[in-house]
Structure formats: structure tokens, C-alpha cells
């Protein structure tokens, strides 16, 4: 790796850190200035003013705003997201640590399938440019993108889970199976887990495959117009080689970037689907935390999602500069 690329990566990283800092600050303000009472989830018959004060002190809410901010930043830097309001003895991190893998499994499986389908579909659409199949195909894809995911999920649930009882309707596995999993590995080795994954994954694929498909299609059309593609035709390569090795390979670059970005955004966007399928992930926790006014938890979940997004944005930049030597070079040109 050349010095230019290293500089580029370091610069991007610093920039990401700065972006994250601003987001974190906004998050702090949003949660501190919110009109709802941060202790709402504690109200009970026996709740007294003294207890309220004690609680405020326990969560550091009695200090002046700027002091809270400093403490908050310092804690974040140590990746200490604080304690939840609603789970005794559990830190926010404990809870998120349990949720995160599930969200990641769902996100990755759906994205990989969707991008697989999308890339192949996009190549096909580009190859069949102008045909009836292409027109119907792209219109259908637009339709799937227009359908609300939760609605698709509900329809799929109605038939596959409730009417035909083919697939489980919610969660990641029955508890009797789940409690035997000691590690994430056990979970991943369990067929039951994968069976539970089918419906939510499929629902997401219905929605997610549209972007890579349309992107791949238009990139292919663009690349097929490029001189180097003409060149490889002129050079007498077989058509599939031209389509796959030259055109598709180059057209894939933006799709790969989109995939990388997609990981971040999906983790934030799966909220609705996780709720439809009771998938124990970050999104469901976030919604419950917000509903139950467990602010440290909501804030933590939000922060984690934002962190992943910013990180994936960073990775996407880096990936792009590594995959496409031109980007790295323009970065280098600025320093050399």
C-alpha cells in the first residue's frame, strides 16, 4: 500500500471520528432536551421524591448539562454506554451485545442473498436490454421496492406461518432450544435458527434486491458503453467473458460499495422487520426502549447503529479506493 493510500485511509478515519463526535453530541442533546421524563419507566406505587432524587443521581442526571456531556463523552470513549433503566444490574452494553449478533445475522444473510439475486438479475436485465422481459422485470422490481417491508412480511406470515404453518412466525428459536446455545457458534450451527431466519430474510430480500438489481443494470449499461468493453469485444473475447469478466467486474464496484453501505443502513433500517418478526435485535430493542422510556438503552442502541453506519461508510470509502485504483490514485495525487 502506497503512502498516499495510507494517508487517505488515515484522513478518512479522522473524518469519520469527527462525524461520529458530532452525531454523538446531537444524540446527547436530543435525549437531554427531550420533553419526556427520563424516569417514566420507574413510576410505581411506592415511588417517592427521595427515590426520584436518588435515581437522578444514580444516572448522573442531576449534574449540569455540560458536566453530563463531558461524562458522557468520556464514558463513550471507553465504550461504556451506562446502565439501563429497566434491566437491573445489566449495562446497556450487555443488552446490546446480545442483540447485535442477531441483527447482524439477519442483515448479512438478507443482504448477501439480495445482492446475489440483484447482481445476477442486473446482468441479465442489462443483457436483455430493451426486451419485454427486461421491462416487466424492472417494473416488478420497482413494485417490490415500493411495497412496505412490514406489509410484505405480514402477507408472508399470513400464508407461510399462519395459514399453511410451514415456517415459524417469530423469534430466533424456541427457548427450549435456545437456552442450550452457549455460544454464537452453537446458534449458527442450529438448523432451528436458520428455519426461523427464512421468513424475515426472504421478506428483506424482496425489498433489498431492487437496489443492487437496478444499480447493476444501469452500471452494466454504462460500462457496456465504455471503450474498454468495446476493446475486449474487438480483441475477440467470448461474449460471456466480455459480459462477466470485464463489464460485470467493473460494474460491480459501485454495487460492492452499495453493499458495504447497505450493511450499515440495513442495521438501522431493519427496525420494522425485527418488530414484525419479533426478531431479538437492535431494532426491536430500540423500539421497546423508546416505548418504555429506557433512555440510556435507546441512546445506546441509536449510538451503536450510528457507529456501525459511520464505520461502514468509512469501510466503503476505503474499499472503493482499494478496488478501484483510480480513486486511490486521486487521493495520492493530492499528496504527491
Amino acid at each position, binding site marked *: 500500500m502506497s503512502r498516499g493510500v495510507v494517508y487517505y485511509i488515515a484522513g478518512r478515519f479522522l*473524518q469519520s471520528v*469527527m*462525524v*461520529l463526535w*458530532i*452525531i454523538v453530541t*446531537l444524540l446527547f442533546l*436530543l*435525549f437531554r432536551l*427531550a*420533553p*419526556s421524563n427520563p424516569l417514566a419507566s420507574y413510576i410505581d406505587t411506592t415511588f417517592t421524591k427521595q427515590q426520584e432524587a436518588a435515581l437522578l443521581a444514580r444516572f448522573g442526571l442531576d449534574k449540569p448539562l455540560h458536566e453530563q456531556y463531558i461524562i458522557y463523552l468520556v464514558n463513550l470513549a471507553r465504550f461504556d454506554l451506562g446502565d439501563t433503566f429497566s434491566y437491573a444490574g445489566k449495562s446497556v452494553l450487555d443488552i446490546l451485545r446480545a442483540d447485535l449478533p442477531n441483527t447482524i445475522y439477519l442483515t448479512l444473510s438478507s443482504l448477501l442473498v439480495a445482492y446475489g439475486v440483484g447482481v445476477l438479475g442486473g446482468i441479465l436485465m442489462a443483457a436483455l436490454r430493451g426486451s419485454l422481459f427486461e421491462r416487466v422485470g424492472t*417494473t416488478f422490481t*420497482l*413494485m417490490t*421496492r*415500493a*411495497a*412496505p*417491508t*412490514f*406489509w410484505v412480511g*405480514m*402477507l408472508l*406470515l*399470513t400464508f407461510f*406461518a*399462519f*395459514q399453511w404453518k410451514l415456517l415459524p*412466525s417469530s423469534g430466533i428459536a424456541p427457548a427450549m432450544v435456545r437456552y442450550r446455545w452457549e455460544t454464537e457458534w452453537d446458534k449458527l450451527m442450529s438448523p432451528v435458527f436458520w428455519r426461523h431466519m427464512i421468513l424475515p430474510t426472504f421478506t428483506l430480500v424482496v425489498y433489498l434486491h*431492487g*437496489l443492487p438489481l*437496478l*444499480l447493476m*443494470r*444501469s452500471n452494466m*449499461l*454504462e460500462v457496456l*458503453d465504455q471503450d474498454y468493453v468495446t476493446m475486449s469485444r474487438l480483441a475477440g473475447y467470448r461474449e460471456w467473458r466480455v459480459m462477466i469478466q470485464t463489464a460485470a467486474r467493473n460494474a460491480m464496484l459501485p454495487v460492492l460499495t452499495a453493499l458495504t453501505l447497505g450493511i450499515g*443502513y440495513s*442495521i*438501522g*433500517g431493519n*427496525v*420494522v422487520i425485527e*418488530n*414484525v418478526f419479533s426478531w431479538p435485535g437492535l*431494532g426491536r430493542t*430500540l*423500539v421497546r426502549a*423508546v*416505548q418504555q422510556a429506557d433512555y440510556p438503552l*435507546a441512546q445506546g*442502541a*441509536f449510538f451503536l*447503529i*450510528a457507529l456501525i*453506519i*459511520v464505520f461502514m*461508510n468509512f469501510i466503503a470509502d476505503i474499499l472503493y479506493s482499494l478496488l478501484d485504483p483510480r480513486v486511490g490514485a486521486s487521493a495520492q495525487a493530492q499528496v504527491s
Partner: protein
Amino acid sequence: MQQEAMVREAATGNPEARFRQGSALRQLWETNLEVFQRDRMALFGLIVFAAFAIIAVFAPILAPNDPLTPLKNNEGDWIKDAMPYWLAEPGEDVAEGYTNDFVLGTTNIGRDIFSQLIHGSRAALLVGFSAAAAVAVIGTVIGLLAGYYGGWIDTVLMRAADVAFGIPFIPFIIVIAAFFDPSIWNVVIAMAILLWRDTGRVIRSQVLVIKEQAFVSAARVSGASDLRIIFVYIAPSILPLSFLYGSFAIAWAILTEASVSFLGFSDPETISWGFMLQDAFLSLALTRGAFYWIIPPGLCIMLTVMAGFFIGRGYEEVLFPRLRRM
């Protein structure tokens, strides 16, 4: 030489023929007209919007019942969970004498689904269009300023865009919706705060391209002021792009409003399609197999969102004949 050929091809092959009229407004109108003339799908989208707009405006007249008040039978009890009469098998229990009042059936507590659908178009269009307008206006202004002036203005605005790109959209809306009084405007505000980022970036890069074009330099050499250059020379070329992003924003706004309503963060006094789906979900539509609660609002959402997509695509095909991108 090659470029000449390209431009000539572009000119005769029509993609550039969008630049036909003199005044910026007329031009915009022409571009819009062209989008809908060239692209039947975009025209379809426009018709869908127009139809729903009419429905939304005349909702109180068109809807046979109040969308929130449960229908009552002769005994004064609510007519709950009535199937659409035309779907019911003979012998199935359809409340007598009320068939005309609820073509699409009633909800779990006896609200008229058809009336809800009609009223739901209001929320969808209101959110869709105001969010789209906000996104397009903010994005365009930011893009123009950042692109044209460059320097620290550009740096600040584009860093802001980076920040906006780093904030997860749905979670942000959920938090906003939970913290403030439930209202459909939460979605609009959140979209305005976040979604200008795409529009802004694209418009900025487009401005950077246009700014470097010789005719802009020519204008400057002729003594044109910054404002004149921005508004007379650059903005007209940018506006179709704003429309493009605006149309997509309509779609996203409707979709987002539906999602947020579905998660239960909407204003219960405002009937929206997402709210209907949430109501259906909470009323156990799946277990009951009450697809007549699920399908109509979902179809309406899909139809309007698709309309936005189609129109956006229509603009795309006219603006970037080679880069038909979604």
C-alpha cells in the same frame, strides 16, 4: 472531434433536446412535459397522484362514514370485524342492512375500512408532498451554495451531509416521534433534517460540473453577478434534478410514514394507511386471516410509492439517458 460527434448525437438523438425553451420556467414546464410524454410509466405515476389528490381533497364527501367512529347496528352495538359483503360466502355472517356502508368491511372495533382508506390518502399525500418539497428545497439550496461557492461553505455543508449520512434514518424518526407529540409532521421534519443529504450531494456535484462549463465562465466574463449566474445559468439546469429527487422523496416519505405509523408512533387521530396496518396487526389480522384488513392499505401505499418511483425514473431517463439509475 469525438466530443463533437457525441454532442451532435446527443442533439439529434434527442436526450439534449430537453433544452428547448427560453425562460427557465417555461423550460422546466417543457422538461416536465417531456418526462410525462416520453415515459408512460411516469404518466401513470402522475395519474395515480392526481387521482389520490382528488380523493384526498374530497375525502369527507367521498367517504361514506367517519373513519374513526365505529359503525353501529340496530341494537347500537359496534359492527366489528365485518367482512366485505361481496367476499362473504353465502351463509357467512354479514351484518344485515349495512352492506352498502362498508364495501371493504370494518375493523376490529367496527370502523369502516373504505372510509379509512379514503381519509388515509390525506396523510400520505400531505406527508409525501411536504417532505418532498422540504427535501428538494433544502437539498437544492445547499447543493447550489456548496457547489457554487466552494471553500469553507462547501466544507461545512458537506461535513454536515456526512453527519446526516451517519444518522440512521428510521431510528431517528422513531426517537423524534417518541419525544414529541405524535404527529405526521414528525416524519416530515425528520426527513427534512436528514434526507437533503442525497439531493444536496448530487446537486452539488452537478453544480460543480455546470460551474466549470464554458458558458458559465462566459457569463462571468460578460460581467454577470454571482446571483445571476446561480439563478439564470445554473439553477435551471439543476431544477429537473431537484424534481427527480423530489419525486423519490415523495415515495420515501410515504413509505416512511407508513413504517412509523406501523410501529405505533403516529398520531392516532390522523388516519393513515400505515396506521391501518398497525391496527390490523394489533387486531391479530394474521391469526384471523383477515386479509381484507391488510391488503387494501398495503396496496394503496404500494401504488403511491410506485407512482413516485415511476415519476422519478421518468426524470432520470430524460436527464441521464445513459445512466438509468434507481
